[in-house]
């Protein structure tokens, strides 16, 4: 009966977030087929790791497993050069990790109306072009609707860093839309 209980528990914990899981895996891997493999692996890991769930946000727990699975999957199945490219210079990187903000004067500031008209293809391309950590933070917040605390849990990073990454990611998207370069 214990295993029966485990299956029901897994169903309750994981099933509502499978679509979120697939979405996150796709945003991390950049590939739908890979994302499905990652989600399947993650479900197995979740099943084996059920004992590690001690309440709290089930969605954050599930997405943490998906994220970890995605990175180990990419490490195994992709050439290293494609993983974790960060285009920030070291000074900016440190600033972001501190939870700071040094935007300077924004070069491209489109009107809100122009942003509202951006189509899905342009948005996807702009998000895909973000550094990994910015992209994940933005996806978790603005597409999947996680709270900062949940993102902090999934990405194992302080809330201040989440805030800083999110602000930067959004700023870059706004500038990309303003550039009209896509």
């Amino acid at each position: 009966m214990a295993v029966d209980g485990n299956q029901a528990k897994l169903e309750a914990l994981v099933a509502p977030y499978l679509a979120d899981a697939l979405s996150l895996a796709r945003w991390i891997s950049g590939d739908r087929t890979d994302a499905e493999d990652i989600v399947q692996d993650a479900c197995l890991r979740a099943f084996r790791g059920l004992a590690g769930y001690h309440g709290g946000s089930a969605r954050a727990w599930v997405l943490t497993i998906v994220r970890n699975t995605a990175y180990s999957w990419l490490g195994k199945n992709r050439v290293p050069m494609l993983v974790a490219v960060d285009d920030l210079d070291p000074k900016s990187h440190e600033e972001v990790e501190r939870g700071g903000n040094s935007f300077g004067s924004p070069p491209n500031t489109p009107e809100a109306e122009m942003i509202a008209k951006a189509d899905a293809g342009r948005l996807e391309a702009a998000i895909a072009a973000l550094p990994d950590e910015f992209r994940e933070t933005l996806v978790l917040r603005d597409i999947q609707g996680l709270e900062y605390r949940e993102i902090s849990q999934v990405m194992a990073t302080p809330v201040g860093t989440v805030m800083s990454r999110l602000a930067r990611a959004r700023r870059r998207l706004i500038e990309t839309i303003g550039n009209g370069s896509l």
Partner: protein
Amino acid sequence: MSGTKRPLSNDPALLVHAYLDNELDPPNALAVARQIDADPALAAEARRIDALRSVLRDRLPPEPISPQLRKRIDAAIGPSRHASRLSAQPSWGALAASVVVAMALASGSTWLAVNPASNNKVRVAVVDSHIRALMAPQPADVASSDRHTVKPWFNGRIAGSPRVVELATDGFPLIGGRVDVVGTTPVPTLVYGRRKHLISLTAVQDGAGADAPAAQSINGYNLLGWRDDQTTYWAVSDLNAAELETFAQKFRAAP
């Protein structure tokens, strides 16, 4: 609300994000709101950020998982691959079909197969009611953001009294209530707002025997169901599935 205790930052350019994301406690939120009012540049940035948030949610909703992936997961978790641990256990799919577990299922129509037909009538009825309400001059018959006005309004109109909670602080203001009809039974429906979207939340008293609701999309409207004791709740909206799920979580979590 996460970062309410710790001083995350004093930088308005950062705080405006946390403000728009409802991540600030009331005193800090008020302070940022005042800064936005006083600073046209900050106000313009807030409008841009808000436009970006909306456009991302509306244009890039998470896709539902395919039945094929669902089958693969069932197979992976099921007995064949983990015979030593799960030899006598049914797969998820078999478990769901036989017990019809009363749990919220994944979004999309993928899981519809495990739901018997009885709920389909309810689904269609609540979506129809929602569409009718959108076409009517007012989506609610009693218009109020005060639950102490909305809840008593149902007295005498339906049997029992629905659970009414205020979720304005979570970004889902209560707009009012109305009585819908499912089959031949009058049922209470609450109306909540989210930006320019409306959410109809219908409560159906159907005892313990009902099957498990699931999330799905009908005629372009997202539908999310869940059970709470003797009641099945149905939330319908043109809002994206992720935010509708957030709404459901907030409603369930509200005192």
